[in-house]
């Protein structure tokens, strides 16, 4: 190739800059881990938010980064939850081993299910992912000898984390356990999205035709990331089952797939912290609104969503730009 390989500028630094950890990230994570100490009574809430944040991030891998839409991501969340609960009940109560098993099984399910999302349009993907989740939901309902059916899977007793930390009533161990898993998997996802592999995902998201034309094996990449996203969603489900000692049909329900999509829309797609932000905002809103108007809280969530999409997140977060007539802030 006659192209000169000589360049006078440093092109590596600007490329690497995006992958570098920012100071606020360390602050954020330190604060998250401090929460169960500072507000012990809110540990259950912290635990729940950590779990749904992980779930939302796993959806972002396929939706925000790769452009694979899904209305049935709860299939993997629920599958992981049942896998972890059944493992604890019938095999052994160790949470870490159970988590690894649930992740592996969810990954396997994701690998199998990935054949359904390779072909067709976004609309077909919405339908097949929705269908897959509904299939699993009915299966869990029907196999009541195994899953407990509509009553849920009861009598799950978890052992201490790493044989050291018993789950306590206030949920502090649960919160730290979930936060630790969240952080570990977040680090993995952060590496993925900034890697050359992650760049191929963004290429597929932006322009599938061109991704093919530069030699990216598009189908193989979609299978891989769908499997990874399923595994991480399964981890989130497993955390829920393990920290609550319970798995019921709602882990597979359509609401769960829809909620996680809402969280991503609220927090922003194609940005891992969007899942965290969305999970926090959604859960706090849900908590607050359902105590103010127990029956109609979904109305307010709906209103917020409509505003968010119509007005745009950027402008909603910058009230001073509302009446400026498009003036640059």
């Amino acid at each position: 190739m006659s192209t000169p390989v000589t360049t006078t500028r440093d092109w590596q630094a600007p490329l690497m800059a995006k992958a570098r950890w920012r100071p606020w990230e360390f602050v954020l994570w330190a604060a998250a881990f401090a929460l169960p100490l500072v507000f012990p009574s809110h540990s259950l809430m912290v635990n729940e938010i950590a779990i749904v944040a992980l779930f939302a991030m796993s959806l972002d891998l396929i939706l925000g980064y790769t452009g694979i839409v899904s209305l049935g991501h709860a299939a993997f969340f629920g599958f992981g939850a049942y896998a972890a609960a059944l493992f604890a009940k019938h095999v052994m109560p160790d949470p870490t081993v159970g988590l690894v098993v649930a992740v592996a099984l969810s990954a396997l399910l994701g690998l199998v299910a990935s054949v359904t999302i390779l072909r067709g349009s976004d609309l077909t993907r919405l339908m097949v992912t929705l269908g897959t989740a509904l299939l699993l939901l009915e299966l869990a309902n029907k196999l009541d000898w195994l899953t407990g059916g509509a009553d849920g899977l009861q009598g799950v007793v978890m052992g201490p984390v790493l044989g050291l930390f018993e789950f306590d009533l206030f949920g502090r161990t649960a919160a730290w356990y979930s936060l630790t898993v969240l952080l570990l998997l977040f680090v993995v996802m952060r590496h993925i999205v900034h890697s050359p592999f992650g760049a191929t995902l963004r290429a597929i998201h932006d322009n599938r035709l061109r991704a093919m034309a530069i030699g990216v094996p598009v189908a193989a990449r979609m299978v891989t990331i769908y499997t990874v996203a399923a595994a991480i969603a399964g981890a989130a489900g497993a955390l829920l089952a393990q920290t609550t000692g319970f798995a019921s049909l709602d882990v597979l329900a359509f609401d769960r797939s829809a909620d996680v999509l809402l969280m991503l829309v609220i927090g922003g797609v194609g940005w891992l912290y969007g899942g965290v932000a969305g999970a926090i905002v959604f859960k706090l809103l849900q908590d607050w609104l359902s105590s103010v108007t127990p029956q109609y809280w979904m109305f307010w969530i709906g209103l917020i969503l409509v505003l968010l999409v119509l007005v745009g997140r950027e402008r909603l977060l910058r009230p001073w730009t509302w009446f400026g007539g498009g003036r640059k802030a």
Partner: protein
Amino acid sequence: MTSATVSNVNDAPVVLEAQGLVMRFGGITATDNVSLQLRRGARHALIGPNGAGKTTLVNLLTGVLAPTAGRIALLGQDVTRLAPHQRVARGMVRTFQINQLFDAMTPLETLALVVSQQQGLTRQWWRALGSSKAVAERAGALLEQFHLADVAQQKVQHLAYGKRRLLEIAIALACEPRVLLLDEPVAGVPPGEREELLATVAALPADVSVLLIEHDMDLVFSFADRMTVLVNGALLTEGAPDEIAADARVREVYLGHGEAAHG
């Protein structure tokens, strides 16, 4: 074009050979028994009126479409049934008539990705894009060569049209093509940004075989050493530019009135 270069190219080995390509969509025959040969270093133009089947032929060659009949060989290997990305790995690269870019990325990220893909690094999921110094340098060199250094860190969607067009070609060259299909490279480029693009096309590496699909006759006749004329999906004729310009049938169906003065 001097006769020396022409005879050189005619002695060079064949890198791309299409034989008897047929493509039918339902009752319509979009490509009708087309055969085509490209030698190493060729500057081959594919012309024909709108609807002649140029785009279908490009899609067949690159693997976007699978032909109803016929075969395609690249560097002596049959690639007829290979997927587009597998053909890219073997050196068959194209640009698009309508820009097909990664809008949310920057030119720097785009080229770093393409170079990483070219070097087989895109299975890496732990190290950051650009952690290979060789990748960053090659991406940077391409940015400078294609006059994209000053906009390297702007999002592609915010670039001027001429810059986007340059990036379109830079991406293709970053794939290190053996055969490059240029689909109307200057289409829609405003006059002010045109020169930069034409110079880039003229400076393409000499060992790369180029198939140029173009409407602009100035560009075709200044660039090509061989031409193929398609009409209604079938091959009308093939030859050196002066032969094509002198061909009465070509004048009639394509060049129209008075346009044949070139060559």
